[in-house]
C-alpha cells in the first residue's frame, strides 16, 4: 500500500494551487535541503513530463525553491520563495527537459556551495506524497510501501551497525536495507525501509552518530 495514513488523503495543509505540483514539489525541495544539511548557494532545477509542461502555472518552481529554503507546505512564505532566495544570494536556474520520464511528475535538483554539491531526483505521486528515486547517481530501490530514510555516511567499518543499533534501540524494525558507496572509504549511502514511522528525535540521534554525514526521511 503506497498510501498508509488517512492524512495522506485528507491533507496536507498547504498553499495552493496543486498538491502534486506545489506541495509535492516543496517537499522534494525540502528533502534535498535536509540531505544537503545547509542552505545551498546555487541550485539547478530540471523539470520533466507534466512538471516541465506546467511548472509555471502550478508554481512548481517557486515551491521547490521554498523547499530548498526549508519552508513546509503550509508556509505562507512559499509564495515569495524565489524572491527570498535571491535576496539571500542563492543562484537559481530552471531547466525544462524534453526527455520522457518514468513518472509524469519528475524533478531533478542539483544544489551546492563552496564546500560541495548534491544531486537528487524526486517524483510527486499525488496528493502531496513524494518519493526520492535517485541520490548522487545512486538509484534508490524503494518499494514506496514503507517509511524510508536515507543515511549518507563515510565508508567506515561499524557505520552501518551503529545506525541499525540505534533503530533497534527504538524498536524500529528494518524491512529492507540497501548499502552502496562511491568507492572504498569514500561517500556511502544507506537506504533503509522500516515498519514504523521514525520521529524527528530519532533522526537527530542518528545524525549525531560517528561517520554519519546526513540523514533524511524520503517516504513516510
Amino acid at each position, binding site marked *: *500500500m*503506497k*498510501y*498508509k*495514513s*488517512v*492524512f*495522506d*488523503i*485528507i*491533507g*496536507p*495543509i*498547504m*498553499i*495552493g*494551487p*496543486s*498538491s*502534486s*505540483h*506545489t*506541495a509535492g514539489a516543496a517537499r522534494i525541495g525540502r528533502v534535498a535541503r535536509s540531505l544537503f544539511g545547509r542552505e545551498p548557494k546555487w541550485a539547478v532545477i530540471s523539470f520533466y*513530463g*507534466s512538471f516541465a*509542461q*506546467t*511548472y*509555471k*502555472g*502550478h*508554481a512548481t518552481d517557486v515551491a521547490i525553491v521554498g523547499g530548498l529554503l526549508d519552508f513546509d507546505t*503550509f508556509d*505562507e512564505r512559499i*509564495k515569495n520563495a524565489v524572491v527570498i532566495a535571491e535576496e539571500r544570494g542563492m543562484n537559481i536556474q530552471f531547466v525544462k527537459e524534453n526527455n520522457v520520464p518514468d*513518472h*509524469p*511528475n519528475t524533478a531533478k535538483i542539483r544544489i551546492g556551495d563552496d564546500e560541495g554539491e548534491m544531486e537528487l531526483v524526486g517524483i510527486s*505521486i*499525488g*496528493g*502531496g506524497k513524494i518519493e526520492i528515486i535517485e541520490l548522487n547517481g545512486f538509484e534508490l530501490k524503494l518499494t514506496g510501501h514503507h517509511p524510508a530514510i536515507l543515511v549518507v555516511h563515510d565508508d567506515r567499518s561499524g557505520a552501518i551497525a551503529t545506525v541499525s543499533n540505534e533503530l533497534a534501540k527504538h524498536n524500529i524494525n528494518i524491512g529492507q536495507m540497501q548499502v552502496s558507496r562511491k568507492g572504498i572509504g569514500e561517500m556511502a549511502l544507506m537506504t533503509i525501509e522500516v515498519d*514504523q*514511522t521514525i520521529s524527528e528525535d530519532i533522526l537527530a540521534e542518528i545524525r549525531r552518530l560517528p561517520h554519519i554525514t546526513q540523514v533524511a526521511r524520503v517516504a513516510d
Partner: protein
Amino acid sequence: MFKNAAELVKLAEDSQRKIADIMIEQEMSVTGRSYEEIMEMMGKNLEVMEKAVERGLKGVHSLSGLTGGDAVLLQEYIQKGNTLSGPLLLDAVSKAVATNEVNAAMGTICATPTAGSAGVVPGTLFAVQEKLKPSREDKIRFLFTAGAFGYIVANNASISGAAGGCQAEVGSASGMAAAAITEMAGGTPAQCAEAMAITLKNMLGLVCDPVAGLVEVPCVKRNAMGAANAMVAADMALAGVTSRIPCDEVIDAMYKIGQTMPSALRETAGGGLAATPTGRKLEERIYGTPLQPHE
C-alpha cells in the same frame, strides 16, 4: 486492515460500527498515535477547510484573473430564494467553488485528496451541516469516512491528475464526499460504498486539461459539479438505489481508463479545453507566450 471497499464494508458491518470508526482504528494501529492525537490532527484539517470556505465566500481572485468571485455570485443567488436545484445543493456547490477559488489564489487549503479537488468534500460537509446539525466531532468523523474511501482509491487506482486524469482527482473527491454524506445522514456502510460507486461511475473518463496548466479552468467548476454529483448520489444510495457494478470494480475501471488516457489529457495542458482556441489565447495572455505551439 482493509485493502478495498468490500473489506471496509465487511469490517464495519461485522463489528456493527461506522466506516469512520474503522478508519480511525486503522490509523491508530498504523501510526501508533492515540485516538485523541488523531482526532486533533483531523480537527486541524477541518479548521483549515472552514477558514478557506469563509475566505472564498468573501470573494477572492487568482493572480491570472481566470477564476474568483463565483462563490459570492452563487451565495447572492441563493439568498434571492428562487433557485431551481434547491438551496442545499447550491450551497454545497458554492462552498466547493469557494475552496477552489482560494486554492487558485495560492491561499491555504487542505488537500482532499488533492489541492485541485479540495473543494468537494468541505463544500458538501459545510452544506449538509445546515440540515443535519452535526457536532464538531461528527464533522471530524465525516472526514475520516471520506478519507477511508480516498485511501482505497489511492492504493488501488490513483488520485493524481497527471497519472489518471480528473476522474482520479475530482472523481475520487466526489465519491469520497458521497460516502461521507451518506454516513452522516445515517446510511449503512454498504450504502456508503454504493454512493461512492454511483458517483465515480459518473466521473469515469473525465480528463485533466487545465487551461494554461493552471488549477483554475475548468478545475473550479469541476469541483462545483463534483459536489452536486456527490449530493445526488448520496440521496440515491440513501433511497436504496444500488450500483450494478460493485464499488471496487468501478475503482478498478477508473484506474484502467487512466492508464489508457493519452498524456495530452493528463495535466500537461496539451489537449482538451487547454488546447481550444480560447484556452490557448488565455495561455498566451497569461505568459506572454504560448506554453506549446498551436495545433
